[in-house]
């Protein structure tokens, strides 16, 4: 008989609104304490101290409009947050400051989270949905100069971009972008040519989330359907469906592969977090704690793998923190 699934390590309450995005910053050395950023529907970004398990600061910069993406630029004191007020803010959190130092006005009305990729020391690429409906724009940070704008062919009818993933094979090499669209397809973009290399229709419904493992050239995407689609990128830069994994309940709002590429977690509309082995998509656990849709899942970036945590934010205003499969 298999063990019953574990309970959460602890639960963070107090956002008083649905949690839409989470980001860990735990790689720092002592005396730095591990931090979790959460963005919630009421427009606040909460900075959680994971040692005391309390909110350190609450950042209000999006005019009480929902925050649906947060990410740090290297250190925990430079934070990017994206809100429904169509702005992406860069925060300076060093030495107790809580000021917005810079911001980008996206003019996009969708829900597409941005994607950030560090291409060199002090230089990042950020992909975001652009003003016109089907386009994706890539900016260089911190200069905010536009690198390229990715337009699908005329008449492609992809709909809005729903999720983005910037990646490169190893640092210094050419960056790529994977984008999931409203019509259920995933497109691989070459940034330097600004051209779509491969398109794969892997869902019937809008792609809600995707993640990609560049080592194995394999990715996974989820939609509002009852399936997870696992696809791979072959030598000719063609995307092809590798496997379809059936789920019990429909709707996946977020997918994250852990940085060691061993397991992945999905956030389900059925209130459950599912853990799979990444190699063979072996189902490992179903974590049933939340009482409403889970919006986001995130793995921590602890230096010591045994301390690694999994966080999930849900519509029920709670953030559950789990410690699972940390020994491998």
């Amino acid at each position, binding site marked *: 008989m298999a*063990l*019953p699934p574990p309970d959460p390590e602890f639960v963070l309450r107090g956002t008083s609104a649905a949690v839409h995005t989470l980001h860990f910053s735990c790689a720092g050395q002592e005396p730095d304490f591990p931090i979790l950023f959460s963005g919630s529907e009421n427009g606040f970004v909460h900075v959680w101290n994971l040692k005391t398990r309390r909110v350190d600061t609450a950042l209000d910069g999006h005019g009480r409009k929902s925050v649906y993406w947060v990410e740090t630029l290297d250190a925990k004191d430079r934070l990017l947050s994206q809100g429904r007020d169509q702005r992406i803010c860069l925060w300076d959190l060093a030495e107790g400051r809580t000021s917005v130092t810079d911001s980008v006005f996206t003019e996009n009305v969708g829900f597409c989270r941005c994607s950030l990729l560090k291409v060199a020391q002090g230089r990042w690429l950020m992909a975001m949905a652009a003003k016109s409906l089907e386009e994706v724009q890539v900016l260089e940070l911190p200069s905010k100069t536009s690198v390229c704008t990715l337009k699908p062919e005329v008449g492609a009818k992809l709909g809005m971009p729903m999720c983005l993933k910037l990646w490169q094979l190893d640092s210094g090499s050419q960056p790529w972008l994977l984008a999931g669209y409203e019509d259920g397809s995933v497109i691989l973009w070459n940034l330097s040519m600004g051209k779509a290399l491969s398109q794969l229709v892997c869902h019937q419904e809008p792609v809600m989330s995707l993640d990609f493992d560049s080592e194995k050239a394999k990715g996974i995407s989820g939609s509002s359907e009852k399936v997870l689609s696992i696809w791979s990128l072959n030598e000719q830069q063609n995307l092809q469906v590798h496997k379809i994994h059936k789920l019990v309940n429909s709707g996946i709002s977020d997918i994250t592969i852990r940085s060691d590429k061993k397991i992945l977690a999905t956030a389900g509309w059925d209130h459950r977090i599912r853990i799979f082995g990444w190699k063979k998509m*072996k189902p490992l*656990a179903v974590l*049933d704690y939340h009482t409403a849709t889970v919006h986001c899942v995130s793995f921590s970036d602890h230096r010591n793998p045994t301390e690694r945590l999994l966080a999930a934010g849900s519509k029920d205003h709670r953030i559950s923190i789990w410690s699972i499969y940390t020994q491998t």
Partner: protein
Amino acid sequence: MAAAARAVPRALREAAAAFSAGGDVAAALGALRAALEAAGGAAALAERERAQYGAFLRRLVGNPDSLPAPQRQRLWRGFFAEAPAALGFPVLAEAVAAPGPGFCLTMVVETLEQFLQEGRLSALMWEVCQQQAQDRSPELQETLLSKIVCLPDHVSNKLQGKNPPVFFPQNYFPLLGSAIIQVLQKISDSLRGGLDCSISFVSHVLGKVCIHGRQKEILSVLVPHLTDVTKSDCIWQRICWRLVECVPDRWMEAVVLGFVQRASGADVLSRLLGNLVVKNKKARFVMTQKLLLLQYGYTTAVLQNVLGYLSLDSLRRALLIKVLQELLETWGSSSAVKHSPAEQQQYISKAILICLSHLKEPEIESCRQELLASMMAGVKCHLDSSLPQIRRLGMIVAESISLKINTDGPVLKFQYEEDNETRELKSLLVQTPPCSVVPSLPDDDRNERADAALPVVLESNEKPHRAAPVMPDEESDAELDSDDDLIPYDMSEDKELKTTKAPVYIRDCIEVLTGSDDVDKWDATIKALENLIQKNPAATREVSVELAKILLHLEEKTCIEGFAELRQRAQVAVLITDPIPVAQYLTSQFYSLNYSLRQRMDILDVLVLAAQEMSYPKIRGKNKHSGAQKPCIQLLPGSDSSKDWRRIVNERIKSKTRRFAKGQSEVKQDSVPNEFNSIAGHFFFPLIQNFDRPLSTFDLLGEDHFVLGRLAHTLAILMYLAVNAMAVTTMGKALLEFVWALRFHTDSYVRQGLLSCISSILLGVPTEHLLEDTTEELLETQSWLADVVEKDPDGDCRRLALQNLLLMENLKKKLETVPS
């Protein structure tokens, strides 16, 4: 030489004269020895002289005292040691069996011991064999035979406790076995030398030993040796075949059974016995009838030996088919299914499966129709049985037959639970490959067939493996390390999310269950119902009968996991909340028209469960756990209620047994009034009233005996649970009458129920009342029980009856100790 030979009779005569006249015996014997030596030893004597020599030895045995004292022992022994074994041994053995006057037992026994230890038994038998080739006196051989075989008995009769170890049967018969081996060796040598030789005396010895019940001792020596030497030597094989063939018919059975049980495989058996079954009628009867159809105590290995033996030769294969037909006839006979013990039915089923594993395609083709016909008949009467074990046996055998006869068409497939027994049975359908290759066999063919049959078993084994699914992944060879080091957690709770809310009021439930087409709502309602009923007793009472009616008629609309149990729990909850009207309703429905057997049995189950919960107040709080552990009484008919009963009786017996070493470890429970006591009658009497009134759709005493069995078990449990109630004496009386009316029922499940009833009566009704009011009935019951213990074909029935008798005995003892 001739003169020397003539000197021997003269010396013999003189010695005889010396014995009778009391002359100088020593001198006469000395002369005899000299004469014998001159003639070339006693072995070289002619027939007439041998007879005289025998008479002389007989005389010598009777008069050891007439020898001169100093050399007495040496001289006396010398004669026996030098005498031919066929002369000396009978004289000594005879002397032991019927000692004459002046006879020295110790000396005789010592001489015999020496005889055995020198291994002269083989010489003795060899001599007889040689004589037999010349066809001499069968009577003499007969006496010799019984002397050889009965020697241990005779010696121990005489010596009582002081028997030397060599005469113990466990030593003597192996010794005899090795002597037989030596004789056979000599026979084989002489056959190779071109000489004729008779083996029949050895066969007689073997037969007689076996019929005396010493198969184990002698064959444990013989069979391994013969197995060894017959491996590649055809002369030895012929000798071995002859050895068994020459056993007289009256001993054949014992010998054949011994061989069958001791041979290490069918091919070995075939080598040892040859075509014995074809040649010998008695052996054929034993192997094809007695062993398979009349007895059932042998192991599966023996069955495999016999049937494998039959299949290993074309002459014998005809018998195999005949055997299969006879087995199927028995298997398919409804009377046999009803009256023979379950063990025997299992034995026959095993034999059928083994037979099937040996049959070849053309053979099956030739008797397909008959197989089909007997399969249909057999399935019918097996599925009719009320014992789950018998039903399952029927299913397995029928599946196997259909698999064999429909090689391409659809095959029968039943649903039953896999356990060790079914797996063992199914494994019989696959032939174990012979451990050593028998050259005359078309081996490839056999293996092919075994392969063809293999998937059946694999299929049945698949389920346990499926727990850890191994995904066929094309990358798996490339990726050495895998996800396997990540151990999955239990994911059984991962079910579809339900969006509909369960109703909160009982009346809403009724509405949903009667009218609603919303499947989700219906589903949620049935799941919430038990809880609702328990929480709102007052509201439930208002609609209790209506609710009970709805639940009784409720059909499963969509596939809901555990539907039967959910419904049952709800029914039980209703019955507990409002016992009297609901019990009235349910018991009246049990005997009314137009219900299915399923519903009638539901009624019984619900009554029992409710009675149980009401009489054990302590488990009511833990309802849910006990419910979860005991999934659906209904789905496992037959086994459950009788098990319940047994558990109760065991507990009761445990409580009655006084243990000195143990202190009273149980913490005393808070006492709570037994809720069931006051209403036991409402449960019990309506049920027992109408059992003998057949309805057009329901005939308890006829076809529906399975329900009758359940009824009997139910009544037994109700009776037991009503202990200490006011009505218990009346209930006991009524139940005794019920039992009495049905005591000769043909179905063993019903009889088991009745016996449980008796136990409940004995345990439930106060002793004084029992003896006062029902003395005669009790006495009658006692004699019936004694009868069941002796004669019932069903093992469980016998056991229950015995337990009842013990209970009665205990009652009697209790009564004696308490002065009235």
